[in-house]
């Protein structure tokens, strides 16, 4: 069977739009679930169970792939001048390669689970050539991702070549497909960086992407991909189904609907703006409003379509997907709007849910309490909570604490208490933070993690283990907490306890590289460099991006006096985890030894900026100041180290030394 015949066979298959869509959605879900199953740093379902995970698997990633699918479809349609239905059938079969990725990655990691990283911004465009350099590992993409993209490119090139027999067009297709994939990888982060490109640094990148009015980063990513889908969908329909685009953007039928949605949004903004002003600074907020408007157009057109027509299917699928992105409450109101339009004779009634949908964009789940502004308290709670979260993400913990404390006086909620506690911890007040977090009767994963870290910083390892053991008993991420217990036991030199915890964590499917990393740390702590080196090498055998193993190797080389190799390992590790405060501290310590004090000082400062509760970094910075003769500054740093960990003996000794 030749390639032409093969493609023709695919094109001739008969199945409905809904079956085609379900198949594509099924492939994407399969890929997502497998990815979350095999990813070394995560657990089945990607993250500890919360709405993030749901949006990642069912909304954000599917929209990412649907958008890529449609853009490639458009490229193929434009280059081959083929009918869109035929092209989409072939493309659907081709997109099945996305299932291969997690399977390749699990094989490459020798069954141990791999670490996924994603492209970060448009600036990485210059590193494009590295993507195809298969002789080396690439931090920005796993082997599975690289092979998947390579297969899609080969498939795209071959398809256009078979259809057109024109090499130039095939090469153009290749380049365009690569650009489509690359831009999809970097687009959300690039959009989030727009204010910083214009010199505005009021809001951090993380705050923008996570604290839109939708509050979940995954939803914000989904908004961007939804708009991309609408944009390309519009072009495809202009080529294949022109009458449908006219139906969607018919202002005669949708003018009032759009007006009521806008009124709802404006009303919501007016109510919330006294408490939460960041809404205007965030570029994603505007994209959310735009998506809401377009969703309204689509749902309105769906309501006007004939029953059982393909148009209705396309519009309904699109409407549901985009409405889910905008939140469950928006989805409920837009469904009511659709049903009234479709079933009731009193069409004007549909304007009410439309108004409510606009309002729901701002107030989400609190909409029923706030839509009639009798309950001013509810509006203030929602607004201040949002503002608090925004400050929190922006690492402005004092402001965040003000907002959260104000909210807590209005509403005694464990979630708010958790954030206040975390603010205290981040501001270095460990005792108060711990006290507040301990008050939470049923702590969630995040609370347990914060509490454990706080106790560790205070040097109360037994209490940390107790906290983690409690979590395990409640079945809260046992795999994760067994590893943490093993880490503490390793640090404390408790071999038996460490082995037991590691054994249990293996039972829960933890990655082997993590086990070897911890064993390496244990032997390093015991001074057995030979065994430590062996363990770290084993960890890197399973995962070349095992940061702790790289850092461990760095420490060994450092102790052996091989400063150059040590520096190399730390830099490698920092390349993988640029936010790891301990790595900056370690590298700084290395420069301290080589008497490069300026470099070391910068790194210690960076380490403290990343984590203000870093005892060692404060202490090391104190040492630098002492070397430079800035005794007052040095004393301040030692005191800061002691504030974080009052039992930190080296800092006490230095203070006593200076006083003498």
């Amino acid at each position, binding site marked *: 069977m030749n390639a032409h015949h093969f493609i023709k066979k695919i094109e001739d298959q008969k*199945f409905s739009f809904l*079956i085609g869509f379900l*198949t594509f959605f099924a492939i994407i879900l399969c890929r997502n679930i497998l990815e979350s199953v095999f990813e070394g740093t995560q657990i089945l379902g990607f993250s500890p169970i919360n709405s993030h995970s749901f949006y990642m698997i069912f909304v954000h990633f599917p929209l990412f792939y649907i958008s890529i699918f449609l853009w490639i479809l458009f490229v193929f349609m434009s280059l081959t001048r083929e009918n869109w239905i035929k092209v989409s059938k072939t493309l659907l079969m081709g997109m099945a390669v996305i299932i291969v990725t997690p399977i390749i990655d699990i094989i490459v990691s020798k069954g141990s689970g791999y670490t996924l990283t994603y492209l970060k911004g448009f600036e990485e465009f210059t590193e494009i050539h590295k993507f195809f350099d298969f002789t080396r590992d690439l931090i920005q993409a796993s082997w599975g991702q690289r092979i998947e993209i390579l297969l899609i490119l080969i498939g795209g090139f071959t398809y256009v070549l078979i259809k057109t027999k024109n090499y130039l067009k095939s090469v153009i297709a290749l380049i365009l497909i690569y650009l489509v994939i690359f831009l999809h990888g970097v687009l959300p982060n690039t959009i989030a960086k727009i204010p910083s490109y214009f010199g505005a640094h009021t809001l951090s990148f993380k705050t923008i992407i996570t604290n839109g009015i939708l509050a979940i980063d995954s939803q914000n990513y989904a908004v961007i991909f939804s708009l991309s889908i609408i944009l390309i969908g519009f072009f495809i329909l202009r080529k294949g189904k022109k009458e449908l685009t006219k139906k969607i953007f018919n202002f005669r039928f949708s003018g009032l609907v759009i007006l009521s949605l806008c009124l709802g949004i404006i009303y919501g903004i007016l109510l919330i703006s006294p408490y939460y002003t960041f809404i205007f600074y965030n570029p994603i907020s505007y994209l959310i409003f735009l998506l809401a408007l377009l969703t309204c157009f689509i749902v309105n057109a769906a309501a006007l379509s004939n029953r059982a027509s393909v148009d209705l299917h396309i519009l309904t699928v699109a409407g549901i997907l985009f409405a889910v992105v905008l939140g469950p409450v928006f989805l409920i109101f837009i469904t009511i709007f659709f049903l009234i339009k479709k079933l009731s004779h009193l069409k004007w009634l549909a304007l009410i849910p439309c108004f409510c949908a606009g309002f729901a964009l701002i107030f989400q789940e609190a909409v029923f309490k706030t839509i009639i502004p009798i309950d001013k308290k509810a509006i203030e709670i929602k607004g201040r909570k949002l503002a608090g979260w925004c400050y929190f993400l922006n690492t402005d913990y004092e402001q965040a604490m003000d907002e959260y404390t104000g909210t807590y006086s209005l509403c005694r909620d464990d979630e708010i208490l958790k954030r206040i506690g975390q603010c205290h911890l981040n501001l270095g007040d460990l005792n108060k933070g711990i006290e507040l977090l301990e008050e939470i009767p049923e702590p969630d994963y995040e609370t347990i993690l914060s509490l454990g870290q706080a106790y560790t910083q205070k040097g109360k390892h037994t209490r940390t283990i107790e906290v983690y053991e409690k979590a395990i008993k409640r079945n809260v991420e046992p795999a994760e907490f067994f590893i943490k217990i093993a880490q503490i036991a390793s640090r404390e030199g408790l071999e038996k306890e460490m082995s037991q915890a590691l054994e249990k964590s293996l039972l829960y*499917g933890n990655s082997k590289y993590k086990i070897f990393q911890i064993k390496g740390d244990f032997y390093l702590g015991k001074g057995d460099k030979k065994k430590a080196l062996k363990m770290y090498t084993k960890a890197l055998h399973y995962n070349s991006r095992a940061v702790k193993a790289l850092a461990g190797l760095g420490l060994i080389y450092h102790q052996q006096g091989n400063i150059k190799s040590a520096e190399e390992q730390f830099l490698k590790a920092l390349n993988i985890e640029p936010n790891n405060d301990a790595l900056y501290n370690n590298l700084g310590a290395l420069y301290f030894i080589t008497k490069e004090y300026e470099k070391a000082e910068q790194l210690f400062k960076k380490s403290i900026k990343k984590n203000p509760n870093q005892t060692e970094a404060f202490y090391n910075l104190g040492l630098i100041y002492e070397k430079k003769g800035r005794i007052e500054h040095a004393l301040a740093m030692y005191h800061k180290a002691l504030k974080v960990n009052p039992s930190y003996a080296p800092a006490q000794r230095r203070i006593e030394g200076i006083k003498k």
Partner: protein
Amino acid sequence: MILYSIIPIIVTIISAVVMEKKEPGIVKNWTSGSRPFIALHYLFPTYFGIFLGTHMFQSPINYLDAFFLICAIFFSFQTSVVTNDINDIKADRISEKTSLLNSKSSAIKHIQELGVCFFLISLLFAFVLGYRILLIVLLGHILHFTYSSPPFRLKRFFPVSIFMLALGALLAAIAGYALFEPSKPFLSFPVKASLLITIPLFLGLNFRDLADYSGDKKTKVATLFTLCGLNTGRYINAFAILLSYILIPLIVQMPLFFIAAIPLGLTSFYFCLKQPFQENYIFYIYFVLIGLLAIIFNINPGLIIPK
């Protein structure tokens, strides 16, 4: 949990009542055409997964959870039966095979609705058990959907089709195991247990296609029998089943079990070649094997549980 548990049960009852009202007798037709033996073949791995979980994590079985999981897997399998019947309607008619669609007077539309009900009920049962069990059950649905339905319709491609069925059974076992291991059940599921499920099923499940031979041939579905011819296919199938029985003692590393595996394998071999072919006897022997394995594993769980 108890409160939520009522929801899928209520939905199941309502669905049955509504469907019965739409087409009287549809539930009865479904019960008679629901392929109970094959359903059991999916439920055994689930029990096996639960058995592994309870022994490995030394945690008692929560019988309500186990019941809900079995319901989720059972209805997931029923969804796959409906999807398969709808897509195989032509082939089943040619093979004169009894299915929900061609032997009774049920309308396709109603059968489709029944399939949607099964799908939702299975997801509801899974959801009550938690988000991660839901994901595993959903993965099972995806597997069956791509197996039966166009555009992929992987059942057309031998041996991928058989491998997918074996994978479906493995997934059912992992679902049972995941009741006890909520973190990474796929990575921590014992390798020996995976092999014990997939290899024998991969070798032994071909006989299911024998009854569909004429339909598969007409609709160009590649099976062992359409590819090798009916007679050669029969012999290969019989030898494959015998091999699947012989491999079991090797996988569990228990040579003593050859005493049971060889006679059972030879009996299956005989029934595979006996004319007229009767599928049920193969299942009966399979159930005897499962019973024996259940007794052995209960006496000595160390045979299958990693130390």
